[in-house]
């Protein structure tokens, strides 16, 4: 095993296997991955900050086995921030908080290609700062169907004075976020609200949408997964790489762009690759910034 010691913000990190190709059919090594996260750090860090990270590690690359790790590995550097959280079964658990570049690089050195975080911060695990609609296409549907659903959802919510933001999942779907950022909000609120929205969508667009989980209902339709609005669930963090054949990114899109792309009949255009992600973020800034700060109240609950 090869090692390379680097120093970030005065902290020494020993990086291993930098030449290992973790996306073999595309050709993207661990060094490439670390470089991607180094360059995207200033955009992704605010979205990871103070949230219990779930690592999804691919030590042998995206074509081999992966494992989820909710606990912060016990060998974590002493300077890496952690938090104590309580799991559903009441058990206590130490989790990693990725609040700075050095922790991000350490986590990526563990081949945690995908970074998954809850909708709430570790210090207030029952307070979601946003409500999310996870749009997941069933068989014979694709991201273009998701885009149509997302655009309807945006209008539906906007009539209720709720602004929403969309990002690609980096896989086949889209994620729509409604920032809330109020300490009074509970997951019960977001669940009830999102469930009602999914129900209305299914009722009005039965050929396009389903609000039901079982696979047979999802054929050729977009599943609006409202049940992600739960303290025990995590979402792929915006700007995180995805472990697909190619290094795609969960990337924020402007509504106008989504509208244009939905008209063109090419689902691949809705995928944002690592290099494009960096250059676009640097050019346009963080399109998801408002998700962290905009205060909105869910009406009629």
């Amino acid at each position, binding site marked *: 095993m090869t090692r390379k010691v680097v120093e970030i913000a005065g902290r020494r990190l020993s990086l291993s296997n930098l030449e290992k190709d973790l996306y073999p059919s595309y050709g993207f090594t661990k060094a490439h991955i670390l470089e991607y996260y180094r360059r995207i750090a200033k955009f992704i860090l605010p979205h990871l900050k103070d949230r219990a990270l779930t690592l999804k590690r691919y030590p042998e690359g995206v074509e081999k086995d992966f494992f989820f790790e909710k606990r912060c590995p016990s060998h974590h550097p002493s300077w890496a921030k952690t938090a104590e959280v309580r799991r559903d079964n009441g058990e206590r658990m130490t989790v990693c908080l990725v609040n700075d570049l050095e922790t991000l690089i350490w986590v990526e050195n563990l081949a945690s290609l995908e970074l998954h975080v809850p909708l709430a911060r570790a210090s207030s695990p029952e307070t979601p700062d946003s409500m999310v609609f996870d749009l997941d296409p069933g068989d014979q549907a694709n991201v273009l169907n998701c885009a149509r659903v997302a655009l309807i959802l945006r209008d539906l919510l906007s*009539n*209720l004075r709720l602004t929403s933001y969309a990002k690609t999942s980096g896989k086949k779907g889209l994620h729509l976020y409604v920032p809330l950022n109020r300490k009074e909000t509970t997951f019960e609120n977001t669940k009830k*609200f999102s469930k009602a*929205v999914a129900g209305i969508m299914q009722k009005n667009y039965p050929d396009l949408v389903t609000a039901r989980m079982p696979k047979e209902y999802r054929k050729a339709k977009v599943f609006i997964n409202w049940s992600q609005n739960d303290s025990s669930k995590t979402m792929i963090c915006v700007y995180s790489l995805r472990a697909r054949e190619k290094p795609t990114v969960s990337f924020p899109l402007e509504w106008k762009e989504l509208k244009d792309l939905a008209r063109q009949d090419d689902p691949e255009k809705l995928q944002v690759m690592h290099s494009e992600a960096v250059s676009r973020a640097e050019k346009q800034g963080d399109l998801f910034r408002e998700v962290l700060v905009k205060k909105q109240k869910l009406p*009629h609950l």
Partner: protein
Amino acid sequence: MAVQAIWSGTISFSLVAIPVQLVKAAEPGRVSFRMLHSKDYSPLVRRMFCPEEDKMVPPDEIIRGYEIAPDKYILITDEELESVSPERSRTIEIVEFIDMKEVDSIYYDHPYYLVPSKGGEKSYRLLVEVMRRTNKAGLAKFVLGEREYLVAVKSTEGALALITLHYSEEILPDEDISPKEGKIEAEEKSSIKKNIKKMITDFNPEKYADGRRKKIMDLLKKKAKEKAPVEAPEVEKKEGEGPADLIAALEESMRKVKKNR
């Protein structure tokens, strides 16, 4: 039939503590009806309505006010109400024993039974027996739901009954009810006495029944035999449901979305 306990704890006085459960001793025999929409038999729900704005008011816009004069209110929050609500009782602590005869039945509110919990049977029986012999009832303060009640614990047919009593301030004054004027002749008095005597019998509650309730139940049975019940429209997929105001707002928004597409 196992009766649903509405409270469990202990009943105690001086050094005795008996584990007990509280169950209802009476169920009001009212026949209740659901209100339906005549067009499609949908069960109707109550909503709050603002006559000023001529529209329904969502729950988050509803607050409490105490009317001190016409159109003048003191506002009170849930937290304030909660802060003055008593804590749930764990024991029924008998503080006094009284003669039950002294309690005017006007004070009786609701009857309950106390049922002995495991291990309490023996002392329970003892207490029932002593109370029966002495014909005394225990007085206690007891919190049920969000209210603190004055309760009387007495022996009844081999069991302990608990009766919530009205506070004296809840009893309406009767001064205006009893007429002050008019002399009563001795003759009249004795005639009434005689008539009452003729009608005296033992108290036999089984002889009486709620006539209207029985008639309604008979009518319902007859109608059920004659004709199949009407059915409410099937509310498909409860999973898509939500608070009525939210659903209404979403439907409204959806109409606009569809119009603009």
